């Protein structure tokens, strides 16, 4: 059934403004094969595939399909040639049913004005699902479905349109480890049927597991291509990063001292929003000199937990105790004064004021306290000194501290955010995926700095989405699922399998026994 395709991308170049996103890239894609497209954030992986899918226009280069030049100037062209792309953010409308999402622009021309035959549509999709071996609730609205299921809707969408090559852009980002396994199984099955995949990722392990061939991009250039059995993770990291990085996930955790009084204690914290429980009886103790990792798929209550600790949200019931004092009703600024520092989930939305210069951003939160404020007046010298210090120690690449924060690249802005939180040793640091979107070297640097806070006796709550990261730096890990703590593991008990199951909703005991 599946038509064999061989796609050649020849000398593709693309710039966004002054930034060269792709520089003469060559790549071959075949159906019946899984091609891993590996690279750091901003390496040009998605840009390259968006060009193949017709969303972006290339500046230079050529696309050939089965040896003949092909013109792809819109997704319509790509789809009609058997190419489909599943973006990292799914292209589904949350308020529409699964069925409606599948059939947008499926029937064209005058036929599209005839009454829809919903029964026929359901039959077509059900047959397709049967052949793929899974089932979707067609009448359910997309917004009510977990991301793993939404991904399958995307894959069915591709099938419905007769795709031979399916591009998956970072498909494992929001999936539980269990769902990742299921996705890989599906990909292998489909490969046997002749479907080709381009698997865009920055996760080495996944490429090693699923790909037949891997191409590595770095800063818009193709660094190299390997058959998967001819390469190894070390070589791929070096190709990806451009330098050898030893022991990516090894950190020196100083043995912690005797358990003292906890720095932070949450007692039966409940938080409800518009009648929906977002946090259910959360009890956590975090001790000095400890990193308490919180694992879980995004959206399971982590943001609410962070905001409860910062004081942005008030718990519906329960208590927050900081160094022995009840701070449940203590306002945000007071908590900052006590030594609670935060690295926010979204640096642009919550962390920074993008329209202000670096120096102002470097004191946000501390701006009312001495030495940065003398009464109501800001002390410019102290502020500049702090900004200079952060820029120096945290290697923020900028010509000056007067540069507008919003003009910094994502990585540099993040370094500024981390630097601000760590400039003065915090009593408690709450960090939410502080390495998101950072390259390998910067990730390593940020994690080292966080471990330093711990080794200096600070308490850290590290909310993470990358299990490798969490396992490498945490002393304990708690797993959240639907606003509930499914259990806590000690460092010696860490197991990806167990944590993965807990992320999918199993309690600790269940996850251990299965």
């Amino acid at each position, binding site marked *: 059934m599946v038509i064999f395709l061989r796609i050649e991308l020849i000398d593709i170049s693309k710039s966004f403004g002054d930034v060269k996103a792709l520089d003469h890239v060559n790549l071959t894609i075949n159906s019946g094969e899984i091609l891993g497209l590996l690279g750091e954030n901003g390496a040009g992986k998605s840009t390259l595939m968006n060009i193949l899918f017709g969303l972006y226009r290339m500046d230079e280069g050529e696309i050939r399909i089965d040896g003949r030049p092909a013109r792809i100037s819109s997704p319509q062209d790509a789809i009609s040639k058997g190419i489909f792309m599943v973006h990292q953010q799914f292209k*589904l409308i949350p308020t529409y049913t699964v069925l409606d999402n599948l059939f*947008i622009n499926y029937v064209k021309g005058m036929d599209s004005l005839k009454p829809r035959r919903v029964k026929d549509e359901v039959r077509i999709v059900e047959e397709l699902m049967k052949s793929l071996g899974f089932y979707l609730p067609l009448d359910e609205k997309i917004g009510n479905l977990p991301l793993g299921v939404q991904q399958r809707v995307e894959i069915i969408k591709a099938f419905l349109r007769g795709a031979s090559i399916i591009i998956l852009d970072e498909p494992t980002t929001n999936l539980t480890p269990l769902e990742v396994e299921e996705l890989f199984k599906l990909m292998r099955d489909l490969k046997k049927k002749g479907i080709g995949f381009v698997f865009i990722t920055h996760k080495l392990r996944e490429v090693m597991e699923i790909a037949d061939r891997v191409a590595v991009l770095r800063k818009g250039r193709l660094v190299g291509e390997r058959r998967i059995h001819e390469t190894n993770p070390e070589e791929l990291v070096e190709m990806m990063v451009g330098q050898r990085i030893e022991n990516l996930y090894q950190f020196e955790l100083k043995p912690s001292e005797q358990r003292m009084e906890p720095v932070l204690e949450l007692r039966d914290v409940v938080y409800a929003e518009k009648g929906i429980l977002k946090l259910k009886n959360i009890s956590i103790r975090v001790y000095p000199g400890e990193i308490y990792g919180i694992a879980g798929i995004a959206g399971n209550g982590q943001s609410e937990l962070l905001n409860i600790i910062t004081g942005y949200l008030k718990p519906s019931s329960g208590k927050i105790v900081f160094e022995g004092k009840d701070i449940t009703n203590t306002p945000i600024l007071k908590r900052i004064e006590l030594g609670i520092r935060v690295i926010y989930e979204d640096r642009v939305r919550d962390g920074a004021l993008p329209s202000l210069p670096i120096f102002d951003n470097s004191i946000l939160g501390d701006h009312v306290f001495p030495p940065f404020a003398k009464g109501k007046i800001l002390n410019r010298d102290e502020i500049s000194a702090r900004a200079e210090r952060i820029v120096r120690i945290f290697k923020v690449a900028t010509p000056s501290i007067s540069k507008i924060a919003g003009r910094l690249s994502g990585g540099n802005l993040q370094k500024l955010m981390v630097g601000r939180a760590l400039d003065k040793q915090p009593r408690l640091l709450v960090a939410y995926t502080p390495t998101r979107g950072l390259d390998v070297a910067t990730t390593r640097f940020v994690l080292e700095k966080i471990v330093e806070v711990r080794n200096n006796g600070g308490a850290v709550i590290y909310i993470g989405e990358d299990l490798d990261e969490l396992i490498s730096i945490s002393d304990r890990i708690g797993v959240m699922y639907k606003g509930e703590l499914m259990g806590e593991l000690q460092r010696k008990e860490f197991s990806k399998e167990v944590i993965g199951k807990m992320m999918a909703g199993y309690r600790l005991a269940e996850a251990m026994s299965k």
Partner: protein
Amino acid sequence: MASAIESLLFYLMVAFVPYALASYGIMISGRVGLFNVSGEGVMLLTASAAFLTTYKTSSYMLGFMVGVGLGALLGAIFTFVSDKLKINQFIVGLTLFIFATGLGGFLYKVIVGVVLVPPRVQVLSPIKIPVLSDIPIIGPMLFSQNILVYITIILGLLFHYILFKTHFGLKLRAVGDSPRVADVLGVNVGLMRYTFGIIGSALMGLAGAYLPLCFTGTFTETIVSGRGWIAIAITLFGRWNPVPIIFGSLVFSGVEVLVYWLQAQRVAVPYQFLLMLPFIVTLLILIYTSRRLEMPLSIGKHYDREAIEE
């Protein structure tokens, strides 16, 4: 008494048309992501131009064509400026409202001038549907009306059918809810926006032309008297759906007819207060429904294929 009710119901339908047509226009533009608030101005300009055309040529057809054509032209300008030049849709809509309002009054003054007795045209005569129009009460109301009344009702049902029963409608709604999703599935978002930006404004133009040609028979600068704004409210609490818009339009034409009736009864209330009634009703309904308002998800937003998301 029976004839009084008959006549009130007759005028209910006559007054219903401009509300419904203008609301359809706002609704269908909104369904592809364009929030066009220029209706009040578009209606005044097209009322003026249509009146002048029919007054000078005695052709109703020509009058309506000029109204619809001017509406379409303004819709094309609206879509081009907001979608292509990426200027805020509300600013473009308000600018067009001011421009069209000024131009409408100006045209009339240039061509007619200031006169003691304003010129008139005969309002378009009703088309009686045999047999049905003889039914008491609903006969005159529904089956003895000018052609636009029939067209307006049919148009509403047609919009409902297209939007919710066909693949074309699914595609159209997708453009307004998520142009990116539509684009990725091969929909020509630009073409859809121009098509329905123009059709939407043309419907407002038809609503404007209707006022002098089918309703008042004359043109004054207050002829639209807020119907273009009220149509936005009708669309909002009709949740951008054609059938609720029909009912919402009936509510407002009902209020309008009620005002005439009260004036005719010589109620001891200054007429200025009666004229406020439609706006008070708008306010009350909007307060009541505002919490449950639904909009096309991407209405008012520009779409740029190569822009970074979020």
